[in-house]
């Protein structure tokens, strides 16, 4: 007996094929949006991603202007009494106006690693292991003898009679007098002075002199800002480890310190690049700029690179304006308090 077939007519066949194609297309789209493709498969995303966006209510500053250092390798900046921004980049100190116009430059014999200014306009520059002093015209006044040939200076603070240099390699704050004579070492583990010791998984030691007469040092491995007398006695600390906005993220933060005219602290972080303001007692107050402000800086710590070469640095100008140097891009952001 001859079998019978129910043949589809052309209209029915085309309708069926269209439905099949539509279903297959939707399935493919859904798979792609789930990221199932082998090459984009990334289930490793850190849980810190939610901190990459700052709550707008916490941001208390607005960007006034932004400009880029005209020399590569910008690492630190300071503000002179005349309002000019001194940027330590490559083998130069470059002087910029607040709008980013380049002025006179000072050539250095090596890579500048930190900088500080005085009320008289003198510049103190750290060059890896030693300090050089320039007057406000850029004339070299002194080259100090290195405290140790292994030193790596990453922060400077200049007081009335003393100069303090943060040495990331030896984990110590060197105390000099104004003639360059070494007078002491601060921050090393010392039970008599109650000092817990500086912990530096990465080279970001900074120091500043507070109007209360104490030094403030960022002990990044402990996620704290510590207070020391100028003789080296440990007086106290504040800060805690947390990826949340109130804390200091990652293994080692804050990487930089600055002081506002009202004695509030400005802290800089890496990993989650952000700049924040804390009260004199160490209570979180507000965000100056969050991770979303530094996308390239944030990317520099993921993917190919580790986070030992990125970061931010801040300096304070007249009226409490905050100048933030993005070490990755070389950009300087001028931030002003929102009214």
């Amino acid at each position, binding site marked *: 007996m001859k079998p019978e077939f129910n043949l589809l007519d052309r209209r029915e066949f085309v309708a069926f094929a269209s439905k099949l194609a539509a279903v297959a297309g939707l399935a493919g789209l859904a798979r792609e949006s789930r990221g199932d493709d082998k*090459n984009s498969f990334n289930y*490793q995303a850190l849980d*810190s991603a939610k901190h990459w966006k700052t709550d707008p209510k916490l941001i208390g500053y607005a960007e006034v202007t932004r400009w880029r250092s005209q020399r590569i390798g910008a690492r630190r900046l300071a503000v002179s009494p005349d309002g000019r921004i001194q940027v330590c980049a490559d083998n130069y100190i470059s002087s910029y106006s607040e709008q980013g116009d380049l002025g006179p430059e000072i050539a250095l014999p090596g890579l500048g690693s930190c900088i500080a200014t005085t009320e008289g306009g003198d510049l103190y520059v750290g060059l890896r292991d030693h300090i050089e002093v320039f007057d406000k015209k850029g004339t070299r006044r002194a080259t100090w003898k290195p405290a140790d040939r292994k030193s790596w200076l990453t922060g400077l603070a200049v007081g009335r009679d003393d100069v303090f240099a943060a040495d990331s390699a030896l984990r110590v704050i060197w105390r000099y007098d104004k003639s360059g004579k070494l007078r002491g070492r601060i921050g090393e583990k010392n039970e008599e002075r109650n000092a817990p010791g500086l912990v530096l998984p990465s080279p970001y030691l900074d120091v500043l002199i507070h109007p209360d007469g104490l030094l403030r040092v960022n002990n990044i491995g402990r996620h704290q800002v510590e207070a020391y007398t100028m003789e080296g006695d440990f007086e106290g600390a504040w800060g805690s480890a947390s990826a949340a906005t109130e804390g200091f993220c990652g293994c080692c933060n804050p990487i930089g310190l600055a002081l506002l005219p009202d004695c509030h602290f400005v802290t800089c972080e*890496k990993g989650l690049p952000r700049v924040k303001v804390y009260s004199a007692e160490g209570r979180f107050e507000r965000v100056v700029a969050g991770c979303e402000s530094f996308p390239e800086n944030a990317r520099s710590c993921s993917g190919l690179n580790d*986070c030992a070469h990125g970061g931010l640095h801040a300096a304070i100008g007249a009226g409490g304006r905050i100048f933030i140097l993005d070490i990755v891009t070389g950009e300087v952001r001028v931030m002003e308090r929102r009214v």
Partner: protein
Amino acid sequence: MEANSGQPKPVSRRQFLRDGARLVAVTGVGALGGALANRAGGQTVWQIDPAKCLHCGNCATQCVLEQSAVKCVHAFAVCGYCQLCTGFFDAEPNELTTAAENQLCPTAAIKRSFVEDPYYQYVIDERLCIGCAKCVEGCNHFGNGSLFLQIRHDRCLHCNECAIARTCPGDAFRRVAARHPYLLKTAPH
């Protein structure tokens, strides 16, 4: 006058033997050179270039072995011996203890031990490591990048075409001399 017939001149037996001997000598010298070059490092194996690795996680899933031949290794010279190691701890740990909920590693393959206040040492247990690179991502994102991935050659099957290399988004897999089969990170100074 002898006419040029255009036919090739026949090779004499002496000439034939001389040419043959030369050919054998040249071939022998070539083979000897090849053998020496091969012995001197011609053999290559697959390895991951840490400078190109994106810590994407493919190494854990794409290897032909059930448990990947890629393992995390630790460059102690680069390590900060952090109390809060972002390769060991979750981004927001409840506390800095070795409790499972605080750890980033899904198989608890990193052993944390106290050295002296506030330093801790982190050692990879390769029997447990699956090469997922979660710790590598955490260490690189905040720290010095002392944790990184390498193909362990006591496990690798030395496939002619590495299955992970085919899918590596960073093109981090390359052939290296079998005499130096690892690409290790070192301290910058």
